[in-house]
């Protein structure tokens, strides 16, 4: 059991998402930053479909009711377990009764707290992910309130605390957010597409788990901003009549009636989600085939990162641990070297 004492903003239970029900109007939900979410679960030895907590800005405080392992990911932050100050990005042991405090996230918006065993609340339609807008999943379909006690699944209390042996991945902020044009790019004049791909956009405060509203050059659609509603995806960039593009995110609706000028590629969605409000960036187009290649490389690199986690030395610094560390380099997806 993990008790929520003081929840950070937007604290929700998430798992990988609710899949296979888009045709019934059910949003996938799931994490805003899927790789950070996967890392948190992997660090505490959970299966990747386990449920963990997502928060925005800072985590808040919790009390462990059993001995367990925890990991905080998403951005760098100070984690306090009892009287110990420990780093984010690796697993730590908490004892029954320990208070856990997760401070503000540095360099990120969305953070994750995974607990060994995973959060074992009852799944709704095959998933524990919270969809706030329709009140589905999680605990009562809502953000977690003080005093909620979250049941944990079974786990081996003697299991290791894992940490990455590679240094944290660099985050070159200046990198463009890559998109595939379409499905309705033909609703925009070539000069509008040119502005879309060369002018800068700003992340506005209108953002939540469902969408991010951007400020940028005007993007007038030919023939108006209403289309016959069709399917939408996380990453779809809708352009409503206001001209302010809306990027649909984890909790997005399944269909929409605005033209979609482009779609953010899967590999760059986590970076977009983690951009600070007020941050400026550009979009860059890649072809459909390139985007698929980038995704395949991204998925492989993530699996490699998770498989490369190693038990942390506990007590004495063991030479076995040091030997297990890859001190000369990391596994970087080729696309990240290029970019």
């Amino acid at each position, binding site marked *: 059991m993990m008790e929520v004492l003081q929840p950070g903003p937007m604290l929700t239970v998430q798992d990988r998402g609710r899949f296979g029900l*888009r*045709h*019934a109007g059910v949003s996938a939900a799931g994490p805003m930053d899927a790789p950070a979410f996967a890392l948190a679960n992997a660090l505490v030895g959970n299966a990747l479909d386990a449920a963990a907590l997502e928060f925005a800005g800072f985590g808040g405080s919790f009390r462990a009711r059993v001995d367990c392992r925890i990991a905080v990911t998403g951005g760098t932050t100070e984690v306090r377990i009892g009287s110990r100050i420990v780093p984010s990005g690796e697993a730590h042991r908490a004892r029954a009764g320990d208070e856990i405090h997760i401070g503000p996230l540095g360099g990120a918006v969305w953070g994750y707290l995974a607990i060994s065993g995973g959060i074992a609340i009852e799944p709704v339609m095959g998933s524990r992910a919270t969809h706030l807008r329709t009140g589905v999943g999680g605990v009562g379909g809502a953000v977690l309130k003080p005093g909620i006690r979250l049941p944990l699944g079974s786990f081996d209390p003697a299991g290791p605390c894992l940490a990455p042996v590679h240094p944290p991945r660099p985050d070159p902020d200046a990198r463009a957010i890559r998109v595939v044009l379409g499905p309705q790019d033909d609703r925009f004049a070539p000069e509008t597409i040119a502005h879309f791909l060369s002018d800068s956009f700003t992340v506005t405060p209108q953002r939540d788990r469902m969408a991010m509203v951007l400020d940028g050059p005007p993007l007038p659609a030919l023939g108006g901003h209403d289309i016959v*509603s069709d*399917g939408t995806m996380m990453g*779809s960039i809708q352009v409503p009549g206001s001209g302010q593009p809306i990027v649909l995110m984890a909790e997005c609706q399944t269909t929409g009636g605005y033209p979609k000028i482009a*779609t953010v590629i899967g590999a760059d969605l986590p970076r977009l989600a983690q951009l600070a409000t007020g941050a400026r960036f550009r979009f860059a187009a890649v072809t*459909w085939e390139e985007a698929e290649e980038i*995704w395949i490389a991204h998925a492989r690199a993530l699996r490699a990162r998770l498989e490369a986690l190693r038990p942390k030395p506990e007590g004495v610094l063991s030479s076995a641990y040091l030997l297990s560390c890859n001190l000369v380099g990391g596994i970087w997806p080729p696309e990240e070297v290029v970019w």
Partner: protein
Amino acid sequence: MQTPAAPAPRILPCGDQALSFQIGKDIDAGANARIIALAAALDAAAIPGVMDRVPTYRSLLVRYDPETIRGAVLGARLTALYAELEVGAQGGRLWRVPVLYGGEAGLDLDSLAAEKGLGTEELIALHMGAEYRVYMIGFAPGFAYLGGLPEALHAPRLATPRQLIPAGAVGIGGRQASINSVAGPSGWRFIAGTPVRLFDPARAEPFLLQAGDRVRFERIDVPAFARLAERAAAGSPVISPEAA
């Protein structure tokens, strides 16, 4: 085989993990029937790497895993399935949905009738007299977009949406009709309410309607509404469809 009039499909990328197979630009029952048949054909083909599909008015969104199948290959498979598609003339399952006209949910019944120069009973007769087609499910869990609304009832959405419309509210938005599946904000005009829950995640079958189904509204009174609402709250679907 498809008729010569069948529109040529377009395959549109939706990022690196989805594509849209689009066969028209407008709301058209024939195109919608072909899309729903294509979704069924895709299910039957059980193509590895296909994760999810969303039939909409005139396009089929397909999510796929590029590590298993590439979009171009999937697009070609869809094109082949589409070319061999047999679209029957018969409609889908028929649902008879009980509704209470006016009442708490039907906020706009009288004002809409006045706006249209119709008596309230005339408006109700028009709404009840039509058979509707579920063009697609989207926007929210179990939310059905219904085509077939008589032209005399077409009504623009409100300039300012209302903040909270209850689940079960029966509305009109432009030339479409709907039944709200979840409570939430809406700019549609509402004339009735049904005790039936189109979406109940606690029910063994959380969703009732599916794309291609037919819907008719049947009038009930206040006591019947209360009785059926009680059954719905206890987890009963209340209604079941007549086979196509």
